[in-house]
């Protein structure tokens, strides 16, 4: 029975981490898969979401779940504007799409430095945290804090809604068309610049949803961004570059692996991620759902 509750504990813990990983990976996947921007400042957007939530909760008592609804759209607008100005200009200037991938990577490093510095100025370098909904809930003998289950529920619901948005709506189809072949999509009447900016904005939106959820269950600090970016990159490659479904599945797989490794030795979880990632790149760089 103890073995059973331990397994349940590890599995549900993995699903919770996995849900958040899936969310941030879908955001990065849109930005890279469609827009060719490997946005290494993705984690900084998550961090901004997390700290805004912390500030709103500790200063004004605003519920993190309300912050989530505010942070997402605000970051969407910021992301949209950044793409419209910075990345659109770079794209127009680049000789090839490969050259654009390189220069946009460097530009997003610049964004990383700027956003992190601004966050350090506002919130200082301290580790923060707050307690919200931390009454315990028992599932078949394993005990979880309510906030972690709420985070999981939100991550799953947001991912599903997003998935249906991409597959069922007109804009979603335009985005997928732009991902497949930007030139043809443009010929077919897709406003490519607008779609690309929306994709970048949607990536920031996902970060804006993930940040508040992360702040509910983990400790946060202004330098936390890069770690989440790296996890998102690993998940995106794991699921196959450009595949949204792959990112969702990859997120849960990595979450489960992380949860298992953390059960044995918490210090080794990042090491395990990198080993998995390196092996994956060597054996099957196209990922689990990528096209060969």
């Amino acid at each position, binding site marked *: 029975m103890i073995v059973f509750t331990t397994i349940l504990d590890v599995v549900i813990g993995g699903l919770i981490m996995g849900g958040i990983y899936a969310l941030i990976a879908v955001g990065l996947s849109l930005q890279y898969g469609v827009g060719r921007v490997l946005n290494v400042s993705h984690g900084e957007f998550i961090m901004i979401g997390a700290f805004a939530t912390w500030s709103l909760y500790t200063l004004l008592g605003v519920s993190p779940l309300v912050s989530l609804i505010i942070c997402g759209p605000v970051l969407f607008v910021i992301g949209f504007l950044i793409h419209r100005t910075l990345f659109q200009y770079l794209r127009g200037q680049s000789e090839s799409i490969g050259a654009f991938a390189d220069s946009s990577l460097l530009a997003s490093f610049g964004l990383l430095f700027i956003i992190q510095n601004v966050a350090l100025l506002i919130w200082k370098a301290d580790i923060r945290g707050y307690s919200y909904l931390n009454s315990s809930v028992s599932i078949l003998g394993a005990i979880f804090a309510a906030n972690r289950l709420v985070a999981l529920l939100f991550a799953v619901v947001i991912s599903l809604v997003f998935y249906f948005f991409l597959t069922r709506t007109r804009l979603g189809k335009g985005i997928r068309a732009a991902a497949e072949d930007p030139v043809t999509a443009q010929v077919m009447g897709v406003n490519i610049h607008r779609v690309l900016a929306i994709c970048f904005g949607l990536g920031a939106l996902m970060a804006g949803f993930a940040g508040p959820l992360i702040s509910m269950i983990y400790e946060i600090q202004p330098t936390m961004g890069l770690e989440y970016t790296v996890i998102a990159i690993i998940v995106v490659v794991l699921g196959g570059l450009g595949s949204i479904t792959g990112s969702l599945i990859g997120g849960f797989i990595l979450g489960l692996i992380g949860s298992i490794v953390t059960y044995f030795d918490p210090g080794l979880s990042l090491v395990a991620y990198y080993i998995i990632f390196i092996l994956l790149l060597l054996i099957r*760089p196209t990922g689990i759902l990528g096209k060969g």
Partner: protein
Amino acid sequence: MDLVGVIFKRPFSLGYLFLALILFATIPLYVQPYFVILLTTVFMYIIITVSWTIFSGPTRYISLASAAFFGVGVYTSALIGKTFPLPVVILAGSLISFILALFIGLLTLRLRGMYFIIFTFSISELMRNFLLWWETTMTGTVGRWVVMVEHVTVYYVILVILVLALLTAYLIRRSRFGLALKSIGEQEEAATHIGINATVVKTITFAISAFFMGATGAIMATKWKYIDPRIAFDPLLSFMPVLMAIFGGTGQLFGPVFGAAVLAYLEEILTTKFPYYYMLLFGSILIVVILFLPHGMVGLVQKWRKGGSKRQNANS
């Protein structure tokens, strides 16, 4: 005006190089220690950037593994620095980095573009995180003490490594080997078809560039005295050479040297004068450079000179 022209046309003509060498070799005799230490840091960045450019410049494979090779040098110094004389330690650091790069090079043959970039970054981060875990759980202390070496000695060692790195970069650039590298960067399949063994050429060049990074790490460790995995494998050490080389322009040997010198000096000024705004300023400069100077500072000067001569032609 003429002087500027000559310098930009032939920045590495023997006479100037010789003069510069004499100047830098005698500098510790007549300047303050602070300036020598500053120069050491600037030279460190120049070496890393020039050696990064040896591989990544012509082939256009952007490597983010510089921190890994540097860190290997740092840890070599920390582990054997007490038992062996300095030259042996530095050579050991370079050779271990060299071998590691051969190994990584052979592993990454199939990877290109973005995959290569994130693979090299992961290698470096894997080493940092593994060492952090190892040091905290196995040895119990995160950091290590390194035998201190006098700052003037550090300066001269760095100067020697710098001269060797520049010489190597120059020779590779001028040789058939350099042409092979360039053709790999232009069109790898075509390069293979005309009989270039792309695998061997890429791997060896990658290892040569790692050699100098390892040497630099080994000597810089003795300057810092205390090291831990976060300092030795700092991801900034991987990003900086990319930024500096692109800032200077990778088209010419002079570009990375110039870019590294300017940015390293700027970093020093910004971190001491504006420690709280340093990253903000640095990030802004990075974005401005990428937006407005896609071919780097040297590219800008060349464009300006070209434009100038065209205008002269139009007038005459």
